[in-house]
Each structure stands twice: as structure tokens, then as C-alpha cells.
């Protein structure tokens, strides 16, 4: 699933069955003013049509595949570590402007994003390490509302789709919550590898 999503997001477009006008208020790039798309203009909406499918902007379009940073520029590199549900550490070299959810998809990490970054679910719930948690901008009320629905909510919980990487987030560690009680049959604790 992550691979399929990675293909979609690498195309820079997200196929949607809904034709609602994109809600830019939920996109952190809007707050950072890093988004080049103007959904108010009917023209730009029309320009996303391809063949018989109606494609519309989503945060997938706004992430760093089309980002303004130069991939070669070391100033733009943000080192991220994902800790997956089995405890495995997966270091990733990302770029300023990358979206934590779509970055995870690109690297085959199983962070679901059921609502595709629209703040309508809590499936991209992650824990942020203490050192970097306070560096994140405060969650919007809508993010807090959806976080309330996430199982095993902690003080350092955030929704991955709302985290956009900046240089000061270099070294951030994002842990995927262990989402089930019946994860271990006999109480065995795996050694981290």
C-alpha cells in the first residue's frame, strides 16, 4: 500500500473520487506560504484534468516533489528517523518542505493516510521525540480534534500529514504507535535491530 501510494505521490497528483474544492486551510504549506497552487482560480482547477479523470490538488501535489528546494543543496537535507511498529529504526534523508506522511510512503513505511491529509482521520498518528516536539508549530484546532480520535494518544502525538520538514527539524524521530493490544502472542519483546 505504501508503495502504491508512493507511486501516486511521486506522480505529484492524487486521484480523487470527490470533486470538492481543495481545502487549503488544512494544508500546512498554506500556513508556511510555500504552496504555488491557487485553488480559488477556476482555471487552475480545470488545468488538473487529464483524460476522463478529474484530478484535484491535495497536499500530495504540494510536497517537495515540486518543492522549491534544490535536491543537491546540503542546506536542504533534513535527517529523519522513522521507528516502525516493530521498533525498527529507519533513517531517511529528506528535504526541507517534505511532508512526513508522504515521505513515509516514499520509503515504504506503513503510515496510513486514509483521508489523504485532509484532517478527516487519525491514521497518520505519530509520536515525535521530545527534543523536536516543541520545535513544531502548534497544531491547528482541527488537528487537535482529529488527534483526540487517535488510539494511545500521548503528549507527544501529532498527525504526520501536518508535519512539514524545516532545517531545525533535522534529526527528528517519528515513532509509529503500536496500534494493537494483541501484538505479541506470548509477551515476547523483540530486540531492536
Amino acid at each position, binding site marked *: 500500500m505504501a508503495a502504491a501510494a508512493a507511486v501516486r505521490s511521486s506522480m505529484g497528483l492524487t486521484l480523487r473520487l470527490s470533486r*470538492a474544492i481543495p481545502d487549503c486551510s488544512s494544508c500546512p504549506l498554506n500556513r508556511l506560504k510555500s504552496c504555488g497552487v491557487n485553488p480559488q482560480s477556476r482555471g487552475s482547477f480545470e488545468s488538473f484534468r487529464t483524460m476522463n479523470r478529474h484530478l484535484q490538488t491535495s497536499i500530495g501535489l504540494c510536497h517537495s516533489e515540486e518543492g522549491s528546494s534544490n535536491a543537491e543543496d546540503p542546506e536542504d537535507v533534513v535527517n529523519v528517523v522513522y521507528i*516502525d511498529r516493530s521498533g525498527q529504526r529507519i533513517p531517511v534523508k529528506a528535504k526541507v518542505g517534505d511532508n512526513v506522511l508522504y515521505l513515509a510512503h516514499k520509503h515504504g513505511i506503513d503510515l496510513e493516510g486514509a483521508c489523504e491529509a485532509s484532517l478527516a*482521520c*487519525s491514521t497518520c498518528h505519530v509520536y515525535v521525540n521530545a527534543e523536536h516536539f516543541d520545535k513544531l508549530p502548534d497544531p491547528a484546532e482541527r488537528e487537535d480534534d482529529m488527534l483526540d*480520535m487517535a488510539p494511545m494518544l500521548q503528549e507527544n502525538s501529532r498527525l504526520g500529514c501536518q508535519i512539514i520538514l524545516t532545517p531545525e527539524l533535522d534529526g527528528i524521530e517519528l515513532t509509529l504507535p503500536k496500534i494493537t493490544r494483541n501484538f505479541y*502472542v506470548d509477551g515476547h519483546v523483540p530486540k531492536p535491530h
Partner: protein
Amino acid sequence: MFIAMECIALPDLALRVRFSSCTPKVCIVGSGPAGFYTAQHLLKVNPTHQNVHVDIYERLPVPFGLVRFGVAPDHPEVKNVINTFTQTAKHSRCRFYGNVNVGKDVSVGELKQAYHAVVLSYGAEGNRSMGVPGEGLAGVYSAKDFVGWYNGHPSCRELNPDLNCETAVILGQGNVALDVARVLLSPIDILKKTDITQPALEALVRSQIRRVLIVGRRGPVQVACTIKELREMVNLPGTKSEMVEADFDGVTEALKDLPRPRKRLTELLLKTALDTPGDKEQQRRHQASRTWGFRFFRSPSEVLADADGNKTVGIRLAVTRLEGSGEGARAVLTGEVEDVTCGLVISSIGYKSHPIDPSVPFDTRRAVIPNTMGRVKQATGLYCSGWLKTGPTGVIATTMNNSFDTARSLVEDMESEALDLSSVKTGSEVISALLEERGVKSVSFSDWEKIDSVEMSRGEASGKTRTWSRRETILLL
């Protein structure tokens, strides 16, 4: 001992490779979120170094279950998960068979013979009844049917609810109740841009309903809805809220002990019910033509009919009080009653699963399939996921976790040989032949994609997301 994990590449498991296990074939009954998330997980793993083949059977001609028919029309983002499910359905090892009624067109026993494992994920297609006199009167509907009506469910097409009354009473205070209230009171300008069905839109244009009461038998701290939906009601254009202040006695004091989600929700409720509005808010309320409110400590005891005994004219509510506090508080009758005039009663007190086949164990009290971690009790090769497994509450994320859990149990069983993979199973070959013999025409996923594109282009023509197909149209394709 073994570990249930999604990533299989661990040294331990290599020791358990068998030399004669066949391609695992799994059948999933139900194509809503539970079915699709279970399939998604199964397609990702390769137990005993084999890839799993998954066939999904669905009673309706169209997939996606409640994501298509249950999510409110003004919440299109929640439906984005359909994209994920579409990817799964189009996976080379996944097949979708719509218009197949398991239990009627083919039995669970026949599926168990054709597949190594069967996962039941058909959710909750029934609803709990209030169990009060007058429940069968014209003007009384289950929320499931009412939502199905405005969402284009084939079996709710003819509902034709009469909206020619001033007050509607909704029993239940969960998100479904709030969805119904919001659809009843939303400005038409907002609704007409959604994919609400045309007949429902027209009925709402003509609707006389100006007041909606959302009734629950316990108090503000026990309300079952979540904050996003409550905020939408509070901010609904053209409306104002009316609550009973006395219902909130003691709630402010209880706040400090509440966990964060309940605390934030209760704070918003208190603010809405008790705060003195500023000038701007005063003005907004003054201009509002529609009202809504929670009514607490009330339980339905009878729906009241007109003189001819046919139509609803009111509802008798028994007054309750709480015993205990917090999530576990219970409502106890006081003996008092209160009558409320209304012409529409919508019962939103819970969905309910039905048994599918006499051979499958079913807990009639809880209306779920008895199981341990998704493995059906007293059965081999039979699993369940979604609401059928845990009861009919929870959002997409809950169902997702639930379904991944069941899939993990299934994979464990494949690895540990608790599930017998030693014989070849023919899967859909044998089932398709049976269905053809029985005159059942199944709908493939590419058939669905044709329907989908027709619905969308028709919708586009009238400025909406889609229009809803009749069952007959679908089957003609």
C-alpha cells in the same frame, strides 16, 4: 513462540518454511473498510514465502460499504480512503465480486471448501430498535435508513420521509445523530454542492423542519459524538443552539478528571450551552432561523400518534437520572415523563449485525461473531474483522487497526500451520461456476469503474460530485 509482525523477514520464521504449502487463497465477505483493510494487509505479506490471493465478495453491486453509504455527503474527505481501497482492488492478486449475497447465493460452507480461509467483514446492516410502542408509525425512521436515503443506498430509495413538521427528534447522541441533524438543518446552498441524492435534496428544499432535538438518556459527560461533529453543529450557518442549563449541573467540576478528548469535547459543550454570547454572536443568533439542541436525561417510552393513529405527532420521553459517573454511568428511570411535539422521529441508537449463515457462531446478545483476536471461536479457517468482530462503533482508524489485527492472526495461523495450507484450493473458479449455475451475475471491479465514471459525469452535468445509480442500471451493465 512466534511474533505477529507485518514484516516477515526475520531469521526465526525461515525455520518454519514448509516444503509443500500451496498458494494461500483467502476469501473476504464484505467490501467496506474492514474487508478492504484486511485485504490490504494480506496482500502485503508473504507467509511461508508464498503470496496470498484475496477474493472479496460483496452483496451490493457496488463496493465500499459505509464509506459510500454511511459517510455524510458534506464530509467528502472522509471518502478519500476509497482511493486506497481502489488500489487494493486493482492489485493483481485481488478480485472483487459484487452482487453476490453470501448466505443466499452461496453458503459460507461452500466458501470454506473453496478457500483456505474465509474472513467475515460484512459489518452491521441492521439497527437496534427502540422497542417502544408507536415505533412503527409513519414519521419514525432508523438513522441507518434515513442516512441510506440521502446517501443513495439502493434499499432506501423509496423512504420518502415527510419533512412537513416543525420539530424533529433524534434519539441518540453519536456522530450519526449529529450527521442527521446537520443534514436536516444545513443551508441548501451547502447541501446542493455535495453528492447528496437529488430526491433528498428536493425534499430538504421543501422541508418545514426548523428545530432538531438530539436526545440522550445520560448526561453531557456521556455524549457519544466527537468534537469535530459538535463543532460543525455549533458553527452551522443560519442556526443557533438551545440547551437546558440545568442539564449541565456539576459538569464544570467534573472537567479536571477527564482524559483529553472527553475534556475538550465537554469544554466545547459547556461553552455552547452556558457562555453568554458577545455582540457578534448575539447578532448571529438573532438572525438564525433554525435551532438545534441536546436534551439529556431522556429516554423514549412511546411515539405518540394523531387521532387516526397513523402519523407521528409527538414522542413521550421518560426522565432519567444518572447512577455513577463518567463513561460507566447508568441511566435510571425516575418515573416522570415529558411529551415533546414533533412530526419526525429518528432513532440513532446503534447499528446491529445479523447472522449470515447457521453454520457460523453468532452472539445474539451482543450481535457480534464470537472471536479471539479475529479468529472465530469454535471454527477453523474462519475469521472476522470490522464491526462484526467488535461491535458497531468506531471510525476508519479503529476499523483499520481492527482489520490489520485479524489479518495478522490469519498470517500467524498460516505460519504456524494452525491453518492447513497443504491442499490446493480453487477459490473463485469453483465459486464462479456455482454462481453461474445459480443465475447470479457478479459485478467485477472494472464493471464498478464504469458505473463510477457514469455517476461522476452525470453528477458533473448538474454541478455535483456524482449522481447515484439505481440497482437496475448497475446490473444492466
